């Protein structure tokens, strides 16, 4: 998958194919080396090297001051990161999964997000909160959620959702160097995904979506792991002679509405693919944006492919049925084309 992102600043001297996990690990290492105010804090990130091994080797090389193992106390250690950030440190918090961020939500929403504005802009809260979301691992209802929309709803937070190893590197670097609290959404299903990652320093521009594949007939919008499916389906239609444009949101807050609308004004059709629930979701926001910003260009209703609205079950057939698949997306893309008697 190509990544024609708007941000790859420095001319890369070369590149390597590495996993999303490795890209995150190397970026954390590089930022720990670059800035002594950067420290990592979270459960099992040191001795255990992270539940998903994102922090492997870092305690050994940077010591317990820079890689802080915490007790199981999300509200306590997320809030402690808020206070440390207020004094000028740059904590990078790992929460084991998005689901556990819910016990820290007061510190994220009422404190990290509010402190800069509520105190008149006098203090910055430069911190990153990383966690993976996503279902499909047979982890049942409480361990399979995609609640990033909760955080994307909150002014004061920035919410990033990289979909490739290259983006993971450039966006995590940008997040750590940003002066605001950044929610950094990873995905259990992406950690082993490989991709080409440019060498050297890469800093993404926060707040920009990317057209990662150009097309003329239909726009597919997605983010995070949904991008893997979106690109797969786009290729499938390309082979049938349908030119699909694919937009990777990359930043859920701020949301790059102009890029979305510009794409739909070109293609006149849009389908949104998301792992989250449909009602009140990210797709709903995108659809409303298109309705307002590209209404006159639309040839078909904007469709959303999203999860069935049930607590995600454990049993594989039920889990599979509830989660949106490539087949689901493919069918909805076809329906959207058929709605306008599209032929090639």
């Amino acid at each position, binding site marked *: 998958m190509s990544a024609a992102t708007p941000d790859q600043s420095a001319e890369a001297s070369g590149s390597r194919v590495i996993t999303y996990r490795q890209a995150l690990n190397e970026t954390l290492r590089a930022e720990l080396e670059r800035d002594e105010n950067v420290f990592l804090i979270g459960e099992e990130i040191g001795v255990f090297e992270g539940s998903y091994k994102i922090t492997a080797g870092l305690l050994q090389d940077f010591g317990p001051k820079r890689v802080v193992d915490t007790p199981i106390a999300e509200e306590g250690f997320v809030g402690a990161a808020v206070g*440390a950030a*207020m004094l000028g440190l740059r904590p990078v918090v790992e929460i084991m999964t998005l689901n556990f961020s819910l016990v820290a939500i007061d510190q994220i929403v009422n404190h990290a997000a509010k402190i800069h504005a509520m105190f008149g802009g006098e203090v910055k809260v430069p911190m990153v909160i990383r966690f993976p979301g996503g279902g499909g691992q047979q982890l049942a209802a409480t361990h399979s959620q995609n609640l990033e929309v909760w955080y994307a709803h909150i002014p004061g937070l*920035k919410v990033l959702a990289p979909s490739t190893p290259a983006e993971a590197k450039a966006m995590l670097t940008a997040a750590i160097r940003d002066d605001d609290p950044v929610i950094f959404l990873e995905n259990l299903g992406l950690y082993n995904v490989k991709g080409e990652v440019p060498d050297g320093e890469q800093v993404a521009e926060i*707040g920009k979506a990317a057209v990662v594949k150009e097309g003329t007939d239909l726009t597919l919008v997605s983010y995070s792991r949904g991008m893997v499916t979106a690109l797969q389906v786009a290729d499938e239609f390309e082979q049938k002679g349908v030119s699909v444009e694919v937009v990777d949101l990359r930043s859920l807050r701020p949301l790059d509405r102009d890029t979305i*609308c510009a794409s739909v004004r070109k293609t006149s059709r849009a389908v949104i693919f998301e792992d989250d629930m449909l009602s009140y979701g990210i797709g709903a926001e995108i659809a409303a944006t298109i309705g307002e910003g590209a209404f006159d260009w639309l040839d078909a209703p904007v469709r959303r492919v999203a999860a069935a609205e049930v607590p995600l079950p454990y049993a594989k057939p039920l889990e599979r049925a509830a989660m949106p698949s490539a087949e689901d997306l493919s069918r909805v893309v076809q329906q959207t084309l058929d709605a306008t008697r599209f032929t090639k």
Partner: protein
Amino acid sequence: MGIIWKEHLCESETGMATTSRTKKKPAPRGKNAQELRSYYERMSLVRAFELRANEMYARAKIGGYCHLNLGEEATVVGLMAALEERDYLFTTYRDHGYALMRGMEPGAVMAELFGKETGVVGGWGGSMHMFDYDKRMLGGYGIVGGQIPPATGAALAIAYRSEAGPDSEAVMCLLGDGTTNIGAFHESLNLAGLWNLPIVYVIINNRLGMGTTVEGASAEPDLYKRGSAYRIEGTRVEEDDPVAVRDAARAALKTAREKRRPVLLEVMSYRLKGHSVVDPARYRSKEDTDEAKSKDPVPAFRARLISDGILTAEEADTIDQQSDDIVTAAVAFADESPDPSVDTLFDKGYASKVPNMPRRLPVEPVVVAS
């Protein structure tokens, strides 16, 4: 017209506070007398400020929630006298007195209550959210217990950057009696105990949550004992007296600085009025409110200073009049100050600006069709 608290710091007179005044000491003279007199000036100012805030709320000059320090003046003045300029303070939403004692201008504090551009945070916070980074007053917090994890993190930052010692910075984190039941309190004490952080958690026990008593809310109503689960030293100050509170706080801060151990300090206080300005406190018995009034620390301290020959009644009246004048000037300043400009609505949301920041007013479209 500001209060210059740092000039009045002196060596501890009594060491660690005990549960009652141990012996009658001779009346202080010289520097000590001057210091005690300054404490009365400060208590008088807090009293005058809060009475006027109450009045301004009734006159709809102040909006939102408004919680007053009335009855807690000895606590406010004693704690702030112990805190050094280099220390950091995190408070609850009952924060006006602390803001004043931390050296913030009464006019700017009143202007914040009035929601004016000249307020301490430009009208973004109001009564519950006083803040001044330079004075290391790192905020009044409106969410009960919300300030405790960030305060703990500030102590973590101090430990990250510097060694223990008498010149070390420390954090003081204030909380109410009801707050000792929230998870954030326990998680934070555990972290501070585990990581040896330089922080003093101060429970201001005014005996009531909103209307819920300490006994009705806490399975262990001796709140200072609640640190024992985290091997954190706990102390209670029974006396509603600025010197006793100051000395106990100073001793606790010394432990935090030099031993890098957290301390849990409980100070007993009385809330003279309701939970907030709109609360008539009908849940309180007449005996209870009579007792609170009889223990009002401002007249009590005044009487003590007069009987010790440190102040005359006339001098005390003059101090009260000066406090009133300061507050009158603060109200005038707040009244005359401009409202914040609506043009600045989107200026404070984020510290680093990035593309596509939302700047949409309710009437405007999300995307400008081109």
